[in-house]
């Protein structure tokens, strides 16, 4: 599994577009997101704002993509469209072989529930709600029975290293721990892709590396497809591919030549403050 993933990563690095179709039939190499000439125009009174000007993009299974760009460059708009929170004005968006560019509100809610995991800058956990209940929440809307919900939430919390913290409320957890709960919540419905909007924006440097370590591990071990928005170049270097937005267009789309390894870095980073003692 790990071996395959690494091989794929190399293929993607060499030439993602061509090789993905020809190399093999494995799910790991299939296109999960295909954006074709996506336009987004906002109308603010009489003024039209052209937020996206014809974005075409393919993301394959198992990719780890960092999206960068100044504010107003269109990256958030694109993330909202990929996350099925918003719809393109023109163009098609194929997610998992399904055209989702013109779905109804309810269908998009179901897609978000089943295929997309969100991680936000501000964690966006429900306050006064235990970690495990926060993780269970997406499954409530998926109609999963209570015992199964509990089991999967438990499993997800363990995979982000929060076993034993199930009953803690967000205000009893450090920022890093809260973000890990959010990652567990994003994982729990086994999504096709995880969208993370500045996941380290509210974290200190060591905690940021810890969170990136989790993302890298999920990407490597499970072949999870990740798309993160970030302002920081050093965070983007943990990804395998960096897309830079400017003026509603993709300015550059390049593989990361020297991907940083968060797990290795953590070994050398001094432990300044154990965030387990925050509560």
């Amino acid at each position, binding site marked *: 599994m790990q071996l395959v993933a690494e091989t794929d990563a190399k293929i993607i690095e060499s030439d993602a577009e061509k090789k993905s179709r020809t190399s093999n039939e494995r799910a790991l190499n299939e296109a999960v997101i295909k954006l074709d000439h996506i336009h987004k125009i906002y109308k603010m009174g009489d003024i039209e704002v052209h937020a996206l000007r014809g974005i075409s993009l393919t993301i394959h299974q198992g990719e780890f993509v960092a999206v960068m760009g100044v504010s107003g460059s269109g990256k958030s708009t694109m993330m909202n469209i990929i996350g099925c929170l918003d719809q393109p004005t023109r163009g098609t968006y194929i997610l998992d072989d399904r055209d989702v560019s013109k779905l109804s509100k309810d269908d998009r809610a179901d897609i978000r529930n089943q295929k997309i995991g969100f991680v936000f800058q501000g964690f966006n956990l429900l306050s006064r709600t235990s970690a495990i209940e926060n993780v269970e929440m997406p499954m409530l809307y*998926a109609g999963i029975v209570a015992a199964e919900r509990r089991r999967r939430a438990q499993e997800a919390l363990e995979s982000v290293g929060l076993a034993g913290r199930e009953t803690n409320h967000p205000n009893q957890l450090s920022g890093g721990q809260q973000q890990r709960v959010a990652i567990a919540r994003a994982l729990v419905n086994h999504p096709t892709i995880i969208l993370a909007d500045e996941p380290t924006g509210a974290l200190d440097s060591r905690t940021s590396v810890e969170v990136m370590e989790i993302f890298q591990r999920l990407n490597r071990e499970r072949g999870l497809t990740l798309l993160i928005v970030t302002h920081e170049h050093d965070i983007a270097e943990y990804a395998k591919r960096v897309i830079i937005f400017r003026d509603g267009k993709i300015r550059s789309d390049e593989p990361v030549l020297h991907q940083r390894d968060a797990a290795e870095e953590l070994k050398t980073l001094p432990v300044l403050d154990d965030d387990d003692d925050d509560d």
Partner: protein
Amino acid sequence: MNIFVIFRIAFRALARNKMRSALTMLGVVIGVAAVIAMVSIGQGAQASVQAQIASVGTNLLFVGAGSQNVGGVRSGTGATNSNTLTVDDIEAIRREIPSVAMASPTVNTRAQLVFGNQNWNTSVQGVNEQFPQIRKWVVQSGEFFTEADVRTAARVIVLGATVAENLFPGTDPVGQMVRVRELPFRVIGVMARRGQDAQGRDQDDNAMAPFTTVQKKLLAITYVQFAHVSAISPAATYTAQDQITDLLRQRHKLAPNQENDFFVRNLTDVAEAADETNRIMTYLLGSIAGVSLLVGGIGIMNIMLVSVTERTREIGIRMAVGARSSAVRTQFLIESIVLSLTGGSIGIMFGIAISLLIPKMLGWPTLISFIAIVGSVIFSAAVGIFFGYYPARKAAGLDPIDALRYE
């Protein structure tokens, strides 16, 4: 989406903010408790008036000799010298009218009763043996006179409780002889105490003898002044009233243009008037309390609206992870229904407790109304749906992107 799951979500959301949930419910608690307590007081009053009227006899009709027009001089009704009503009239009423169950000719006089060195002035009523049944009055000791006593105009007398106490302090009057206008009467019974009537008159300050005896021995008349008539049921009193009127007009050979020389009074009218007053009072109290329930409902809407704004981010999160608009709407709707129904249930308990305490603390009678309880449950659920719908729709209509960005 399973409704039970949404119920769970709603319950958890409410439990997360216990203080606010409790304060929101308070409005409905007070409203429902007030409705139940007020309706209980109203119904209690109604029931006690009805019980009083029933003790007088709701079937009761009162027939009296009426005014006469003798050469342009009209006498008043019920005058002692009014001789339009005869024993035969009363007999005919009893015999010929099917809606009449019992009738007693009645003649009244005031007389001095003397026993030993005690004496007492009281009203002596001449009636027949059916009188206690008509008036729903029981004999405390001894017995009432019989049909034979009436037929033979026996000099027997039954005393009211007040008369018995005053003439026979500390002794049993039954079997004793009293003198009424110097005539000896044997006391054969004492009536049970009835207390005061609605006008505060002592209903026990009287004595009863066969009407034949009173007519012949005390008044020396052949006509009767009144009759107590009992209809077969409270509802039959109206028919009985009409039929008695027709019968008496016919018997008195009154031409269509002549006015009645008698009157028939229906005590059900009085009872119904009292009943109506109480019913209006109950409605009034209930609707004032209902207004407070409405205010409680508006309180729920208020808090739910604040809650939707305050929890915009939560709504955004829920929508982002895949909650459909309908799930969000249902969640908020259920939250407000749970608030109002829980408030309603607590209110019912308070309402019942207040209804049970009022008779003890204020001495007012109360009657807990089942309809008021069911009504307030339904009403509080309706309040939840009605006042919860708008905030719920507002929540469901939020755009997830805006909601997530909301600070």
